[in-house]
């Protein structure tokens, strides 16, 4: 995990530097005006890497040991973790997508579709969130 954190830190510093260089370069070329799109875009790309890197630092602290992938004597078999709970299959995400498509379609003109799409979206979201709480898959 150490290398992941270092890579994120390098990316963060790189984009902060890019943002600074971009700002100064633009100011030098265009009479001291700041071009905000690039300055903010590059700066916040740095923030993006900082956010993920900082999270990895917290994860690494609570990890209590190294992953097999981070050890020189690590074997593939050592890294066979419990990956978490995943649905075997689910129709709900497809329904969410269809409802969203209906809502976006309504923006092109047929605005009466908005409440219909919204109601469908609500049904599909409730179905998805509670899929493993009621019915076929309930624990």
């Amino acid at each position, binding site marked *: 995990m150490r290398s992941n954190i270092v890579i994120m830190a390098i990316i963060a510093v790189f984009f902060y530097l890019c943002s600074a260089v971009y700002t100064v370069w633009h100011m030098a070329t265009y009479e001291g*005006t700041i071009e*905000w799109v690039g300055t903010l875009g590059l700066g916040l790309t740095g923030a993006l890497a900082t*956010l993920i890197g900082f999270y990895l630092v917290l994860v690494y602290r609570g990890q209590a040991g190294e*992953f097999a992938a981070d050890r020189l004597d690590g074997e593939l078999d050592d890294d066979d973790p419990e990956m978490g709970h995943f649905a075997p299959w689910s129709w709900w995400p497809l329904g969410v997508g269809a409802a969203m498509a209906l809502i976006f379609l309504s923006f092109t003109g047929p605005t009466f579709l908005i409440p219909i799409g919204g109601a469908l979206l609500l049904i599909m979201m409730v179905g998805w969130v509670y899929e493993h709480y009621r019915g076929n898959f309930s624990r």
Partner: protein
Amino acid sequence: MIRRPNTVAVGTIVWLGSEVMFFAGLFAIYFTLRAMSGDLFASEAEKLNVLFATINTLILLTSSFTAQAGANAAEHHQARRTGGMLQFSKWGMIEWFFLTYAMGATFVTLQVFEYIELIQHGVTLSSNSYGSAFYLTTGFHGLHVAGGLFAFLFVIGRAYAVKRFSRKEATSAHVISYYWHFVDVVWIGLYLVIYWLK
């Protein structure tokens, strides 16, 4: 036993990273338009009700703390309160999240009233570039708050749906608190840029 990061939590953080970039685009729109028509922005920003927005900001800011209190209760697998209704120290996740929900809903409602006041002063989405920038940035933030409110209801519903509050329910409580803190931080940025820098 090496503890691995929770895949749901990691996925949420990566998605929040992409949300940062979405709001970066909105901030860039605001700053670009302001750089192009500074006088217009200065005169239009005079119409803002800064005191009203400050109170609203404090409500959202406080709701981040109540959301964290709920997430901490979920960490101890305490879904419901163990004491009386007014014994805050014994509140469970459900009570804290309902309070957070109420505060978030208040924020959105007050924002609607703020919009009404501004529209009466002639600031609309299509009035000029200031109106467009103002409503795009605060509007997309408001949509995120409204979406978060639905998510809080889903998480509260999950706590009601199970007999035993497990790791999985605690995880959804944690990721919604991450999201809520993110929305809060974005608002602090928007508040400073729109209401203080003007």
